[in-house]
């Protein structure tokens, strides 16, 4: 579905990603793990078309999307729920969700809105409230809901558990599993190694702009190097 090959990317003269290969297949949850500064968000933002890569290739469903605009990539069905939510604070919850189908999924806007509100009943209660007044957890729900409004074929979730209480983190991972069981492919970008590996089918570990480890999530969970670096034992 998504194939990233030898991707090099960064900002100005600084190269952050130095040849990354990564793939997500249909129906998979793939976890992308790594500490702060490893290049996870750089990877996302290049895949989503916010930045133009230095080199390498990104293909989505067989189509070359390297350097394509974010409009084109959303239109193709690759939707990112960004780190820090990036909801529209001055717009109501409803308007935020409706804008999720600005480029894609507009014909089914009403039905999708109903579906998102069933997944997140909290958002239904807050429908007319402006998004800036929501709590962090609610904003995260809104960001995911807005992403779902675009009828994604592949959803990139960048640190969905960041800043949430442990209980909400549980809920969030439960939700990601449910969305996936409905057939949605997910690239889960996380620092939360244990829970991500428990949920994902496969995983990649990004270190200093390169893939340091990759394999099935079960194998990686037993990997002694990974355990030492991220779990401390």
């Amino acid at each position, binding site marked *: 579905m998504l194939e990233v090959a030898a991707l090099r990317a960064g900002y100005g003269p600084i190269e952050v990603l130095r040849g990354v290969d990564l793939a997500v297949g249909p129906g998979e949850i793939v976890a992308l793990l790594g500490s702060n500064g490893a290049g996870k968000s750089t990877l996302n933002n290049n895949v*989503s*078309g*916010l930045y133009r890569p230095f080199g390498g290739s990104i293909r989505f469903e067989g189509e070359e999307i390297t350097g394509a*605009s*974010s*409009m084109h*990539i*959303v*239109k193709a069905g690759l*939707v*990112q*729920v*960004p780190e820090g*939510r*990036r*909801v*529209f*604070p*001055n*717009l109501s919850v409803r*308007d935020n969700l*409706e*804008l*999720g189908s*600005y*480029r*894609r999924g507009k014909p089914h806007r009403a039905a999708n809105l109903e579906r998102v509100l069933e997944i997140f009943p909290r958002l239904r209660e807050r429908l007319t409230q402006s998004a800036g007044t929501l709590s962090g957890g609610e904003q995260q729900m809104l960001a995911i809901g*807005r992403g779902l409004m*675009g009828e994604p074929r592949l959803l990139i979730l960048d640190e969905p558990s960041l800043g949430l209480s442990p209980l909400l983190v549980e809920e969030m991972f439960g939700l990601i599993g449910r969305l996936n069981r409905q057939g949605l492919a997910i690239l889960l970008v996380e620092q939360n190694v244990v829970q991500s590996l428990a949920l994902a089918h496969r995983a990649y570990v990004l270190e200093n702009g390169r893939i340091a480890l990759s394999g099935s999530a079960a194998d990686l969970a037993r990997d002694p190097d990974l355990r030492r670096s991220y779990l401390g034992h």
Partner: protein
Amino acid sequence: MFDPAFLFAGILNGLLAGGIYVLVAVGLTLIYGVLHIINFAHGSLLMLAMYAVFYLWRLIGIDPYAALPVVTAGAFGLGFVLYRLLIGRYSHGRDENILLITLGLSIVIDNVALLFFGGDTQTIDVPYAGTFVEIGAAFLPLPKIISFGASLVICAALGVYMARSDMGKAIRAVAKERQGARLVGIDVENVFAVSYGIGIACLGAAACLLMPTYYVTPSSGHAFVLVAFTIVVLGGMGSFAGAAVGGFLIGITESLGGLFLGEQLGQIGISLIFILILLLKPTGLFGSKA
């Protein structure tokens, strides 16, 4: 010492003048809110639109009010194209550059206007210019009443468009969260161009509403924009409600100032209110923190 009826007339006159100010200020505040720049070309573009209205009347005999749809649409087109071909392209994504480009644009337009139109004051003679409407003790010129009503309708229509349409929502989304907007597939550059276009379209409409009672010279746009700028800061940068309330407030202040202090000194009232608001509420009446 003054008759209350006199005061009433002054307030009504101020309200009527405020209508046009609101229109000019709404355009300015929209451009500021979305592009985060002060559009220094605002006054020059208003002047261009006023000349367009003048020449449509002079050469083809089109009434300024009848010219409104054409001039407004033309102004939108001009704004859109200016953004696409000049402002967006040469700003390289930096707000400071947009600012410099609009300033440069203003200087060029002013001087080209001086070259082609000359420095003479031009006015339009409409048959209804001398018609007055009596409201209480106040005699109000009919064109001013029409202009006032039309600017209210235009502002309300714009408000509905911004609140209901997908493009309106996208414009508001881009104003506060550009990255999030890109991630839902909004064409941010296009939204910038449309916003700039709408801002200039407001000037086109304002020009049609002004010309039956006002005159045009190559520098007459700036007087309005200076006032509009005051209104935008007063109401809160980027706030629609602020531009509306600020516009009427300034209109009334100017009118009453003129009444009590005379035409020249009356402008002091505007500066006074401006300074007071900035002292008491630096973000403006409806402004939020950046």
